[in-house]
């Protein structure tokens, strides 16, 4: 028979392992979302750089594709692990986050350049919050993309900012997604 201290240690081991499993599951699903969003953000920024007049439409298209992608991803994950990952609550949460972002842009009278920096910073803020709860990878990815976005905003004038954003936002999410898959 073991003593109370050994039993406490064993339970702590169990708790730690369960925490790692949960984090691993979150990282597995999130990494696919990050990879998808990395590609979409990269394409939307590059398309906006080529055809600046239609930049907003490219982003609407990116959001529409991402919604379809999330549904597909959810169905794929459910078939594989029998766990539903995205349901109506997630879509409502994303819609509320998006609505508040639009609210800020409208009442803040943001210029297109300011919006180019605002949206990644705003979304990455939620990544950083997720990092507090679900694992430091979100925190690192969010903080890095925010820092690089601010560097671009203050030091890269004109349209080349979109190229920078394609690299640091799109590229950053892709690298972050790959890193999460390996974690």
């Amino acid at each position, binding site marked *: *028979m*073991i*003593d*109370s201290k050994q*039993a*406490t240690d*064993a*339970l702590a*081991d*169990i708790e730690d*392992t*369960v925490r*790692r*499993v*949960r984090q*691993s599951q979150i990282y597995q699903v999130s990494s696919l979302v990050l990879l998808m969003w990395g590609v979409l953000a990269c394409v939307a920024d590059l398309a906006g750089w080529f055809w600046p007049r239609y930049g907003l439409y490219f982003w609407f298209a990116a959001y529409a594709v991402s919604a379809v992608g999330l549904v597909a991803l959810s169905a794929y994950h459910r078939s594989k*692990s*029998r*766990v539903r990952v995205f349901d109506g609550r997630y879509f409502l949460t994303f819609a509320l986050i998006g609505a508040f972002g639009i609210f800020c842009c409208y009442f803040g009278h943001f210029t297109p350049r300011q919006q180019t920096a605002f949206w990644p910073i705003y979304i990455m803020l939620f990544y950083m919050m997720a990092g507090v709860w679900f694992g430091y990878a979100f925190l690192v990815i969010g903080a890095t993309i925010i820092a690089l976005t601010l560097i671009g905003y203050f030091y890269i004038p004109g349209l080349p900012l979109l190229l920078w954003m394609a690299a640091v936002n799109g590229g950053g999410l892709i690298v972050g997604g790959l890193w999460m898959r390996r974690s």
Partner: protein
Amino acid sequence: MAELDDIIHQPLRLKIMAALNALPQQVGLEFARLKKLTGATDGNLGAHIETLAKAGYVSVEKAFVGKKPQTTVTATAAGRGAFARHVATLQEIIAGKQV
């Protein structure tokens, strides 16, 4: 008075069972992921999985994904039950119900 399960109580096997028990029923973990989660070596993990499989606590499924062999380990109903009893016994020990 409940007894600790000697098969589960070994530290690595406890981690393996904790990891598998955290998943929904009939959902398993790939060997590579289990190795990363438990921090075990290939040989060590393989040996302990075999012990758990012999006790009927886990099932091991080997398949090919493309050309790569993939081993998936899943907790059985008996394994989940044994793990739950083991955890209950640990809690009893902490609560001072067992000496």
